[in-house]
């Protein structure tokens, strides 16, 4: 085991100090050290999108991200979205549109989708499909997820 090094992270608005080895992934820190188990591991090689979190406002695959490279960064996970109460529009839309089946892909998808509409409030069908193509879902066939993201975009626009 490599030598450990201390890093600081701001996760969902909270400050953390953790000791990490050089090869520890951000995913492991979130799940194992911070007990933020809402972020899932579906492949561990960057091919499924289940582990998507926001790093300094940009979606990233936490299974491919080394924790040491995140020193001082701000991270948002699924648990951070409705931290202060009501569900985010995107969470609400995934529920209403029945875009959630087994739910294993859901955390990553919602984080990715939220980033999309935060930056592109009026996404086209193609934009949505492109974003969601970074997320494997074995259950839903994506149809309702695409509807949910469109609806989440609408709700987000209305809430502004």
């Amino acid at each position, binding site marked *: 085991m490599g030598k450990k090094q201390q890093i600081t992270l701001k996760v969902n608005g909270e400050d953390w100090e953790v000791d990490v080895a050089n090869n520890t992934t951000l995913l492991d820190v979130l799940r194992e050290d911070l*007990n933020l188990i809402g972020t899932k591991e579906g*492949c561990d090689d960057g091919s499924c999108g289940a582990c998507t979190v926001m790093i300094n406002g940009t979606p990233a695959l936490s299974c491919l991200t080394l924790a040491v490279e995140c020193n001082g960064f701000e991270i948002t996970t699924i648990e951070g979205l409705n931290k202060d109460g009501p569900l985010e529009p995107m969470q609400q839309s995934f529920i209403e549109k029945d875009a959630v089946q*087994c739910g294993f892909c859901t955390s990553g998808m*919602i984080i990715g989708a939220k980033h999309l509409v935060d930056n592109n409030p009026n996404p086209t069908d193609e934009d949505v499909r492109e974003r969601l193509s970074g997320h494997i879902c*074995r259950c839903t066939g*994506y149809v309702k997820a*695409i509807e949910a993201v469109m609806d989440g975009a609408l709700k987000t626009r209305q809430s502004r």
Partner: protein
Amino acid sequence: MTKSVVGKSVTRVDSFNKVTGNAYYTGDVKLHGMLHGKILMSPHPHARINNINISRAVKLPGVKAVITSIDTPQKKFGIFSSTRDQYPIAYDKVRFVGEPVAAVAAVDLETAEEALRLIDVDYEILPAVFDPKEALQEGAPQVHEEAGHNRCLDYTVTYGDLNDGFAKADLIREDTFKTEALAHCQLEPYVAVANFLPTGKLEVWVPSQSPFTKRAALARTMQMNLSDIRIHAIDIGGAFGGLSEMGSAEFCAAMLSKKAKRPVKVAFSREQTMIAYRQKHPMEITIKTGMTKDGLITAKDIQILADGGAYQSTAGIALTVPLIMFLGLYRIPNVSYKALRVYTNKGPRGAMRGHGNQQLRFADGAQMDLMARELGLDPLEVRLKNAVQTGDVLLNGAKVYSCGFTECLEKVAEKSGWKEKRESSPGTLKGIGIGTGIHICGFDLGIRSTSGAIIKFNEDGKVSLLTGNIDNGQGNKTMHTQIAAEILGLPLEDINIICGDTDLTPLDPGTYTMSSAYISGNAVLQASLDARNQLLTIAANELNVGTSELEIADGRVFIKENPERHMRMKEIIWAGYKAGKHVIGRGEWRPSNVTPVDWMNGKIDGQPTKAYSYGVVVAEVEVDPVTYKVKVTKTTAAHDCGYAINPKAIEGQFEGSVAFGIGQALSEGFVWENGRALNAGFLGYKLYLAEDMPPVESIIVESEDPFGPFGAKEAGVTVSIAAVEAAVNAVQDALQAKFDSIPITPEKIQQIITKG
């Protein structure tokens, strides 16, 4: 009866947890002192194990337990007593790449992985066999020497008179089709947590389709009392048939925990999940069909050669359900069916979505279109002409009590614009194809055929609903909650459902064979009716009326003629307590007069299942002349689900099924080299993505089964079966060619196009 909760697209009872990161899956389980387990898997497809030396691994600091076969009771498992041929950890030899050989538990993952590298296995490499035909040859390597051959299932069943049938045909055609091994690709990688307690009891968390099946196999292989093992309820990240049987993760976690006296988690990597548990049967299917010039099928001679991989797994079921379902789709007077499954040195093949039925439907349906083309007939008309109808008695004597097949065909044709589109497609690289699917809703599973459910009213007038059935993501929790809410006149949120905990919930068939709605749903219905009667009896007593004068709705019981006089649930429950009564409803349900099947011999006479569901898909495709890629531009799917308890969830099943089906037709499949899967991962094994996904027009057909709860059967799997056939036929139509294997890759299309 007007219904207020069933038949409505309600919000799923578990989606709030899933969109907030609060769903709790096996990989999320963390227990005090929990160790990390890892399994050493064979790198060889076939080898004798001469010796395993674990001494270096044991000495590594942080290692708490190392096990090999000698640390275990060395009991084999399998789904029937006659087919137990697999050790959870290899004993004398390994038979496929990925077979467990040893396991380690350590304080962290890195130490466990390091320890695996310190285990010295002395393998004596044996010649291996990968091709089923070669496996049948004289002198082929023997996967199980004691069997004396590699055939693990071999039978022929005949109905009617083939010669007579073929004599009546105007066209006879024989074709051979092939399918590839597939992975379930549940997004949740396979994982188990076990805690062997000082009391001798074992606690287990593991994704499954039936905790009761896993418990029975665990008890056997661990030589424990069944009731000393508790499998806990847990959220599950998809199953698709792949979690039907016990696997080595829960076995190794349990054994390691027993040895280390600490809880252990064993998590498979994505690659291990794909190669080391179960896969879908690849099949070579030869079909000889006789057809009259106006499209009536006169005879079918079917021969299936299935590559079973290294173990029996679901052999008898995988090869026999196709026959049961084959007889229930088209009226064919003369049928011969030969099933042959062989052992090879590949991963064991078990259940996956539709089991062997989907492979046969692809082959049969692709050929049907080729014959229609030769005869100048519309493939839709051929299907309509031969379709089974409600009330039919099939060749094996089974009665079809409800059948919306024809309605599915007609509605899909109409909605998709079948007639117009077929006429306009010749000469372009556009095509349209139709596919059909059938599935059974449960079959005889011995003692596990009956589902049980319990409704327990709590002090506040709300309900705990206990069912042995589970939810792999398809929405069973919501469905059962809806059924109970409907009968008890309660809002969904007043019912808390507990699914599949072996200590708490009654026995259930599990989420196989599409029986969750039909069988488990009926048990929930019965339990709800029982509780309802108890509520009415108490209320009648309190209100001084007869029970027949009462109605139940909106969380209260009231007098029909005078709704103002009512009691809230809580008042009834309290009145019950005061009179010494608890409202606890019990329900159980087993379809009556279902005949047990002799799976290893294909004996299916009688009524092997009580209900058949039907699905039809039309797929439209465009072939790219440059890249040779197929784009599915639109799909239309109809499915006879009996009755739609939750229409939106059923639509979701259609959509997932379409992605599954066209993925199998066009892109999914393992690539092999000497028994090794070269593409075991999402980078190499191509799943359908959002950008590939066509629109899905969903049509729900309700044939109202006389025995299903509210008339319901299963929801969705026939669509996944039909979608494969539809996509293949659409490509065949686009290129006016024949494709005899799936997946239809760009390479195969290039061959057809460049050959002209």
